[in-house]
């Protein structure tokens, strides 16, 4: 039974792989560009996958388009532009830096900065608190206690 299940599972995965088509490239450089481009483009049907990994039909079409465009000699930028003109910045896994995405890009730095300042001021406050907290009478009391302790020991 277990063997049957296992073989069924294996068959299933074979099916899944069968859907990614293989393209022949004229040069290894083109193939490399194809790989980087398809890895950076998001599949809009299964939104958390890039088109290189997706089995969705749309991803298949988009891969074909990338392949065709590479073969006609278009640059990476031209292909990316073609995609964003149709599907918006959403199609890019690495969003461009512009007014709309400004918050997205600076948020990590900003959070780190705010956190850092908060932490720094906290430390600063603690430091001053420690040195200024003891009044003269408290200091005398502390000395007394310390003194009492040492005299106890002896």
């Amino acid at each position: 039974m277990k063997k049957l299940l296992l073989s069924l599972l294996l068959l299933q995965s074979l099916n899944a792989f069968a859907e990614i088509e293989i393209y022949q490239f004229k040069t290894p450089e083109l193939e490399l560009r194809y790989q980087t481009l398809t890895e950076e483009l998001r599949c809009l049907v299964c939104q958390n996958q890039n088109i290189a990994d997706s089995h969705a039909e749309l991803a298949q079409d988009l891969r074909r388009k990338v392949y065709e465009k590479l073969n006609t000699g278009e640059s990476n930028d031209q292909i990316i532009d073609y995609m964003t003109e149709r599907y918006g910045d959403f199609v890019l896994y690495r969003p461009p830096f512009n007014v709309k995405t400004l918050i997205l890009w600076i948020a990590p730095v900003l959070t780190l900065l705010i956190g850092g300042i908060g932490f720094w001021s906290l430390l600063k406050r603690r430091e001053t608190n420690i040195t200024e907290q003891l009044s003269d009478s408290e200091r005398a009391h502390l000395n007394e206690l310390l003194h009492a302790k040492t005299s106890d020991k002896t």
Partner: protein
Amino acid sequence: MKLRFLLPLGAFMILVVFLAIGLKLDPHDVPSPLIDKAAPAFTLPQLHEPQKNFSPADMKGKVWLLNVWASWCASCRQEHVYFTEFAKANPSINLMGLNYKDESDAAMQWLVRLGNPYKISITDKDGMAGLDWGVYGVPETFVIDKKGIVRHKQTGPVDPTILQTLIMPLIEKLNLEEM
């Protein structure tokens, strides 16, 4: 002193508000960059008369709708009823159907069985026109104005509310616009 303790709570509340908004957003509702841009050109054969072509340029001077559908798409069946009623009630509306990545026979049978609301149906067998229009999930519906500019895109099935409160008023508004 008390205020300082309220600070994390305040920050948390702001976070909650953002998360609540985020929950309500539909990640599949990707804004189309095509809005207010010229409708992408194509020349494709008509479904019922494949020897005849259709191109968006043929519709210049008219307000029209392009509904992208396929016989294999379940939610297209759901919206089809509403489109059929809508077309019957408003015969003046230019509703065109783009049959996306479909078999023509299956598509024609579908229209015979469920009714044909389209003035013209066009076939996009390999989905390349769909790709040009930024189609990523059928059904999708575009509203194109007299100048051939895409003015609205509806992703996913329409329902009577969307047709009556959004699509219809937009068509009426666009009809009044000058060429």
